[in-house]
């Protein structure tokens, strides 16, 4: 069961606060915690949601009265609601669009839970416009979790939006944290107005052997000692398949080579790729036989100081 929240405490007020006190306290806290002023800060967003909720309850005389009356026993307010409904009463709409469709890991994005113009007024709450006016639907924010390998290729994804399955194309090369706008995939409009947009943020998980910096990839590859000493060829796995590399004789440990165009696809630039940087990690043989040790001693003896 949800815990009681002391809205007065959230706003740093006492129960005898005036409407003006509430407004001032809210504005002061909003200037510090509002998501618009704290981009990409989920902590600020959570804090502000509480502040906003407190303000919505306390700045509305009807809601405040109910909250003051029931306080910690707010759960009895349900009975209060029922009684009011029987009397034909109506409660404030409040709240904002934070849900609406499923299939994602959660909601985020700038502005937090607000897009008032479309979500509330365009949803018909304003009442200052003709009822037949056409309103655009609200915007949705969502996150899509994917792996680096997923982001490497252009892919079709089926999303469930408002209970409907929608197929979208995600271009290859999306970045971790990148947000794209899918026009018309938000909430439906009212009275024939256009639908809102879906802001889809990509969270690209990368636990594999590749590190990504922009469009370039970095990978460490083990190299046998003798190949490093004498040179040769090795085959390396890349995201686009196998890559044969010539290893120069006397290659040092930690040497980096660049494979042009073998990195990550550049977003929305077909056929264009970043580079793949490969760092050699030379493997020192273990479990040497006596014969091998003797040969290496002889080799060491030939080394000039």
């Amino acid at each position, binding site marked *: 069961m949800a815990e009681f929240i002391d809205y007065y405490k959230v706003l740093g007020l006492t129960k005898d606060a005036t409407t003006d006190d509430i407004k001032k306290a809210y504005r002061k806290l909003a200037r510090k915690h509002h998501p618009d002023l704290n981009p990409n800060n989920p902590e600020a967003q959570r804090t502000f949601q509480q502040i906003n909720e407190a303000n919505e309850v306390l700045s509305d005389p009807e809601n405040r009265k109910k909250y003051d009356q029931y306080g910690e026993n707010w759960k009895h307010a349900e009975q209060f609601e029922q009684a009011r409904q029987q009397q034909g009463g109506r409660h404030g709409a409040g709240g904002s669009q934070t849900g609406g469709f499923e299939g994602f890991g959660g909601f985020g994005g*700038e502005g937090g839970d607000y*897009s008032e113009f479309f979500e509330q007024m365009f949803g018909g709450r304003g009442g200052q416009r003709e009822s037949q006016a056409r309103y655009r639907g609200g915007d949705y924010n969502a996150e899509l979790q994917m792996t680096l390998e997923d982001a490497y290729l252009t892919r079709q994804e089926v999303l469930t939006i408002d209970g409907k399955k929608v197929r979208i194309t995600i271009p290859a090369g999306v970045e*971790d*944290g990148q947000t794209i706008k899918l026009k018309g995939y938000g909430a439906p409009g009212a009275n024939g107005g256009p639908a809102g947009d879906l802001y889809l943020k990509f969270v690209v998980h990368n636990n594999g052997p590749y590190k990504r910096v922009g469009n370039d990839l970095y990978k460490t590859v083990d190299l046998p000692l003798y190949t490093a000493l004498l040179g040769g060829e090795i085959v390396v796995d890349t995201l686009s398949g196998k890559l044969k590399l010539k290893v120069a004789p006397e290659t040092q440990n930690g040497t980096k080579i660049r494979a042009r165009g073998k990195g990550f696809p550049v977003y929305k630039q077909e056929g264009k790729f970043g580079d793949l940087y490969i760092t050699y990690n030379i493997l020192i043989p273990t479990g040497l036989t006596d014969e091998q040790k003797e040969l290496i001693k002889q080799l060491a003896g030939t080394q000039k100081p």
Partner: protein
Amino acid sequence: MERTDLILVNDFCVYHKVSYTFITGLQEAGLVEIITIEGESFLPVDNIRDVEKLVRFHVDMDINMAGIEAISNLLRQIDEMQQNLHTLQQKLLLYEAGDEAAIDDTNTY
């Protein structure tokens, strides 16, 4: 043909309870784009989210035009810094993985 990509500035002002001069002030500060067609002023639908944010600064947080301009510039800088930070964090991961070789001495294939 009726356009659905524009919103009348007057409608926007009525809903948000902001003055018309507030929106033109934002335009003068270079923070919003207003399109005029046959004497009527419109906001592009694609920019509404950003304009609403500026309205919230004004209405919810009681910030004046000069403050909004300063905040917008700072937010732009924060955005750039966050992008730089993201790139640096990605680069740092290379070194945390134990790879400390310099990128300069690379051979190209």
